[in-house]
């Protein structure tokens, strides 16, 4: 590959801190690239569909109200407000990081992948369960309220005790059960059989659905939507043989029949799983042996 001499990137001391991690300088080799402010976005075709929210360019002011809790410091919860500058296309998670890194290091939250896959950062954002890394600043500016998810004990700030949630998940035997002898080839499964349970394989165990359910808030015995979704994934998988055992668990008092088709779960799911539909299919499977 022909190598060309390039302009060296500046190697002096770092400049004044930037509030949020900026985009790259892929070498300072372009004329006129100094204005590549993220706010303008990439060139787009006329008439192309845009994402939701008002057309915003340039940095915006964002006021973030966060519900805090730290039993080491005081016994009751309290509200903090931070006003920051952010790019409209920053994630709300980036804004929370800015608060943590530059305003209050004691703010504690869970996060990892920062793009909606790991499920760590489910929170109540402006009253609704969302993943903080999938909400952009421009969707909520100028003011956003952030709280921990409901129905699970709050341990500190935005961190809740996930053990009851995972305990519910384990109750439905969330693993394939098939005692037939295995060969050295794959079991066959048609594309239609595969499609049957595709939706519920998407679950990332973020708990947004279960902690948005009013039945779960009122009665933490309720096994909750996420556990039912993960049971559905196996009940409707043609290779599984333990549907009866799972459905027995789910037909208990704390099981599927608590569901009142409120639909909060379906609205909350960041993966777009049709949760309420899956719960109804499990109810029908119990009642009519159809699975």
């Amino acid at each position, binding site marked *: *590959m022909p190598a060309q001499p390039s302009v060296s990137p500046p190697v002096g001391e770092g400049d004044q801190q930037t509030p949020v991690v900026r*985009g790259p300088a892929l070498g300072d080799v372009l004329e006129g690239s100094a204005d590549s402010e993220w706010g303008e976005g990439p060139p*787009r075709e006329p008439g192309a569909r845009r994402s939701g929210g008002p057309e915003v360019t340039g940095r915006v002011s964002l006021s973030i109200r966060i519900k805090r809790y730290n039993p080491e410091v005081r016994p009751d919860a309290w509200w903090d407000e931070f006003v920051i500058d952010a790019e409209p296309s920053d994630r709300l998670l980036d804004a929370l990081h800015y608060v943590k890194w530059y305003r209050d290091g*004691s703010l504690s939250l869970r996060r990892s992948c920062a793009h909606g896959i790991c499920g760590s950062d489910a929170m109540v954002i402006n009253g609704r369960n969302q993943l903080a890394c999938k909400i952009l600043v421009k969707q909520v500016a100028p003011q956003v309220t952030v709280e921990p998810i409901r129905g699970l004990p709050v341990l500190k700030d935005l961190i809740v005790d996930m053990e009851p949630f995972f305990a519910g998940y384990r109750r439905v035997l969330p693993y394939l059960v098939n005692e037939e002898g295995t060969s050295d080839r794959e079991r066959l499964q048609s*594309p239609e059989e595969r499609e049957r349970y595709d939706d519920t394989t998407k679950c990332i165990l973020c708990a947004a659905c279960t902690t948005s359910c009013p039945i779960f808030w009122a009665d933490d015995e309720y096994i909750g939507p996420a556990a039912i979704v993960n049971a559905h994934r196996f009940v409707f998988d043609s290779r599984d043989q333990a549907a009866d055992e799972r459905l027995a668990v789910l037909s208990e008092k704390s099981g599927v029949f608590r569901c009142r088709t409120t639909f909060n779960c379906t609205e909350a799911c960041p993966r777009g799983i049709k949760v309420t539909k899956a719960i109804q299919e499990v109810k029908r499977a119990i009642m009519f042996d159809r699975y």
Partner: protein
Amino acid sequence: MTVTHTYSAVIVGAGGAGLRAAIEASGHVNVAVISKLYPTRSHTGAAQGGMCAALGNVEEDYPEWHTFDTVKGGDYLVDQPAAEIMCHEAIDRVIELEHWGFPFNRTPEGFIDQRRFGGHTRNHGEGPVRRACYAADRTGHMILQTLYQQCIKRDVRFFNEFYVLDLLMVDGRCGGVVAYELATGELHVFRAKAVLFATGGYGRIFQITSNAHALTGDGPAVCYRRGIPLEDMEMYQIHPTGIYKLGILISEAVRGEGGILVNGEGERFMERYAPSIKDLAPRDMVSRAIYQEIKEGRGVGGKDFVHLDVRHLPPEVIETKLPDVTEFARIYLGVEPTTEPVPIQPTAHYAMGGIPTDVEGRVVVGPDETPVPGLFAAGECACVSVHGANRLGTNSLLDIVVFGRRGGHSMAEYGLAVDEPQLPKGIEGETVAMLERIRGGPGLEHAADIRNELQRHMFDLCGVVRKEEGLRALRGLLARLRGRYELIGLSDRGNLFNTELMEAVELGFLLDVAETVAAAALARDESRGGHYREDHPLRDDVHWLKHSLAYREPDGSIRLEHKDVKLGPYVPMERKY
């Protein structure tokens, strides 16, 4: 206040490799898995494209072709016997996953479907071959879920949100680890006959990365601090297609399904750089091509990105096979991929280097590969080496199950053969002291600033293109950052979920890892795979057909040694596609 636990086998990290090792070891010995995240949060779940195996379900294929592709893809730094093992075991590992319930996409006849992927060819490079097994574009998510489910089935013991901060070595033998419990601030000593590190990569040394915030190189750093060398650290893969400015990965699978890269002039430029397989050339070649196009002013609008174009693909292909990546474009860029091209740029993605191991997963040190008793590693944090100087797509999800299983097996075997180690009292003292130093720091410097500058310098000076001048400057910059790191302080004084303290510890790991990457990159004055030196653009098999080993000296400086590449039937050739 320190709690002590005793296990035969302790696995650090609960991603694909760690979970697969736990499954393997759990039937035989007492196992504990320690993870700083809840297991299903691990970054294996973000992997999109697929896991390859020469099943030959859709077209003719053989493990030998796969082995050749892997060796050539790694620019001949791959240890060929290791690649052969991995590519031959691939078939069993895929079938095993299917038996455990993995929801592979299927052919009309009901077999596991396979698709094309970059660098995978039939008959030693004749043309692309359908070798990647997949579940839509969330193969990694399904692997992570399936392996976690199998751990639940086997009642594996997890210690979640525990951070491993130190490795305990007694008389040259591994004796366990020290871990910090995030929920309480308590330290735990895990006395173990065998420890396996599966902590993943270290993309967070770079500014634009596909990696999660948690990927701070904990396993390599902890081992490095205890005298274990790190292998091939200069070999870091910058993936060509990350979302512009955010680094979020757009899978190679998009190109596997027919997506193409287009520059500012509307040209499919990969035709010039890799005439035969074009956009499916190995990732390092595509990233350099994008870099070159941008440098020569052919970025979109003259800016520092190019386009990934899928507008010509049938909408149902996009919806059924690439749903997640299209969602990323919609959410984060407001771009509709079916009608608009997607702005992308290279993003730091994968560590080919790491803790050196043999093919059984045992950590080995020195040019003669002496095993360290009781110490094991698998997955991205390990270096076997199967990926050499560049990893092919879909080979990582394969690596983690093949070597996770081998490591788990080796750990169990070792544990059944030896007695428990005797740990001296107060062995956690160094960890206590490290945490006290950070807690009691003067607060004259800011951890977030140091991290931002580290990431920016590493991406600018040690990224897609490197050269001596920049790497020497980088060495000085890193030294100054380390000096400033000693002066940070904390505002969170508590013991309850003190994530600020843990981020400060992780910053120390990032500095250690970054220093080894920069040092190894400066020393290797050739170009190979992901390591491209503008001042030494050619591959030099006479002097450099060898792996680097970076050791930490007592004064904190780095000593580099080398060990030969294990060759085999494939003679190093020019890497053209």
